[in-house]
């Protein structure tokens, strides 16, 4: 069984570059349709599919993603 995980995006730190969206092997991140306080459409977790592989956190330039293993 692959690992199961979940992620949290810090919306005030995310600048909407979507590098995380582009590297997630399970495509479980997307562009949010809500504008953040800092003026971006942040990345957001779709709510399922995370395998705690850390790819998103490794490429995030803004340290905006926390990865949990469930």
């Amino acid at each position, binding site marked *: 069984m692959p690992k199961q995980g979940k992620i949290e995006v810090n919306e005030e730190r995310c*600048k*909407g*570059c*979507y590098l995380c969206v582009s590297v997630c092997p399970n495509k479980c991140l997307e562009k949010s349709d809500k504008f953040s306080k800092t003026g971006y459409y942040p990345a957001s977790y779709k709510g399922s599919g995370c395998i705690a592989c850390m790819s998103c956190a490794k*490429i*995030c*330039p803004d340290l905006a993603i926390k990865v949990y*293993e469930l």
Partner: protein
Amino acid sequence: MQLLNERPKSLLDVSMHYCPGCGHGIVHRLVAEVMDELNIREKTIFVAPVGCAVFADTYFNCDAIQGPHGRGPAIATGIKRAKPDSIVVSYQGDGDLASIGMAETVHSAARNENITIIFINNAIYGMTGGQMAPTTLIGQKATTCIYGRDPKVNGYPIRICELLSSLEGTRYAERTTVHNVAGVVKTKNAIKKAFQNQVNGIGFSIVEVLSMCPTNWGVRADNPSEATKYINDQMVKIFPPGVYKDVK
């Protein structure tokens, strides 16, 4: 439930000013993770450049100084010689390191100063608005070569790792990239080695990192594949990643 990634203690919990999708933030995190892992935060002195990373001294949780453009290796030399027990890192862009600071770069390597250099090669002057750098690719557009770099007028890109490898004093030179996850992992390993070399007294160590500048490359910041593709398809041909020198 277990949190797998804590923010490194060596990086202050503040938001950084870099543009969306800029590689500087990735490399800052990697440097900070390495400082944590080697437990050298308290003895590290960070030399910030002039360039987009000019505020880096306010992001790292260690002693730091911001030096004049290109002078990082000279400042680092002075600090390391005066305080040999400290760990000194000079973080520089390509305009800074390969243009105005070329003399400092070459001579600090030739002298085998026991310092660590983190060199961000984004093939452009980022901070000042996208002028041509010594590392700008042939054909690449910049505000000072609007039809693309023409070797007849502007010469050819300078390959820093190859150049410094020819100097006896250079102990370690590796080029990596942060445009994909595998590259980020390799970059961290290289940065770790460059710091370990200083801890072990091995000497002059440089890591050149190919890094995205979506803003001044004129590509979309919200479509990361445009900038990562430029590194993947164009930059690595001129600047192949790899270990160029590794003297034990």
